[in-house]
């Protein structure tokens, strides 16, 4: 495995927490980023350390370029060069387009899309020099597919997929891979109140777990996925098949 650390944004709970735990199990020292849930991030770090891994909780708002600079500085001084990045931090602020507040449009785009630009831009510096890097963006099946009431969210995730593919092509010859996972309905606090009664529409007849998404991220970060880049791995129980 590469000598360096992984940053997982929005890792205090849900898919981010499961991903941080999975990467730590593969031997990555992990920076567990959070914006407001310090307790959740601390629990993730404790869980990783109890299993014999290394982790550091780092509070930073990744929608803010200064926050990103601080996040990387602290991760690098505490855990080493950043060679894996999982852009997982996300938010939703739903509403039908005519009623969608301008602030909610902007906030979702900044957190779900611009943040990935800020972190990726910074992460590529050490990755290009190391001739190795793994970037995984947590997108969604919403974006490539419509979901009424989520125009901002869909735009951000579709944008994230376009971003993923373009950056992948730019840096492929340096051993840096850039991919996305596109979860469907996953049981987390993020989807609380959304999943009831929807399982029947999913071919697998159940919603997914954060661990099932995390295991896909884990694969994309691994050495085994060295030739996989610019792709979107859908994790949705067949919902969008």
């Amino acid at each position, binding site marked *: 495995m590469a000598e360096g650390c992984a940053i997982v944004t929005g890792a205090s709970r849900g898919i981010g927490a499961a991903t941080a735990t999975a990467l730590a199990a593969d031997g990555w020292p992990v920076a567990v980023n959070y914006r407001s849930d310090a307790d959740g991030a601390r629990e993730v770090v404790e869980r990783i350390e109890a299993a014999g891994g290394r982790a550091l909780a780092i509070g930073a708002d990744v929608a803010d370029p200064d926050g990103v600079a601080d996040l990387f500085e602290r991760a690098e001084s505490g855990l080493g060069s950043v060679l894996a990045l999982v852009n997982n931090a996300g938010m939703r602020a739903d509403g039908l387009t005519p009623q969608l507040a301008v602030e909610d449009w902007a906030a979702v785009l900044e957190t779900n899309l611009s943040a990935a630009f800020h972190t990726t831009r910074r992460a590529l510096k050490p990755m290009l*020099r190391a001739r190795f890097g793994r970037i995984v963006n947590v997108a969604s099946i919403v974006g490539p597919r419509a979901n009424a009431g989520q125009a901002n969210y869909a735009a951000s995730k579709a944008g994230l997929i376009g971003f993923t593919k373009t950056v992948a092509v730019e840096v492929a010859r*340096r051993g840096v891979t850039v991919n996305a996972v596109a979860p469907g309905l996953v049981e987390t606090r993020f989807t609380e109140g959304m999943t009831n009664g929807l399982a029947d529409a999913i071919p697998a007849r159940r919603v997914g777990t954060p661990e099932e998404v995390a295991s896909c991220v884990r694969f994309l970060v691994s050495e085994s996925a060295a030739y996989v880049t610019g792709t979107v791995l859908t994790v949705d129980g067949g919902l969008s098949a």
Partner: protein
Amino acid sequence: MATQVNDEAVEKVILDGLEEIGAEGEISREATFESLDVDSLDLVELAQIVEDEFGVELDGDSVKDVKTAGDVIDLVVAKAS
């Protein structure tokens, strides 16, 4: 700590950096990036080497017109002074 910026130090870092990023042919101050088969991604990496060594940031705009290793050396020295 950042290396002291003078023409000689910058030349060494740039020429060594070009070798590190896999430039082809004879690396010299006069060599053009075209002759060295150095592309835009290589220049991004060279800019990173410069930033790591001298703390001088070379953004996209500032490197878009550079043609030779000497151009970059002059640019770094000018930016640092």
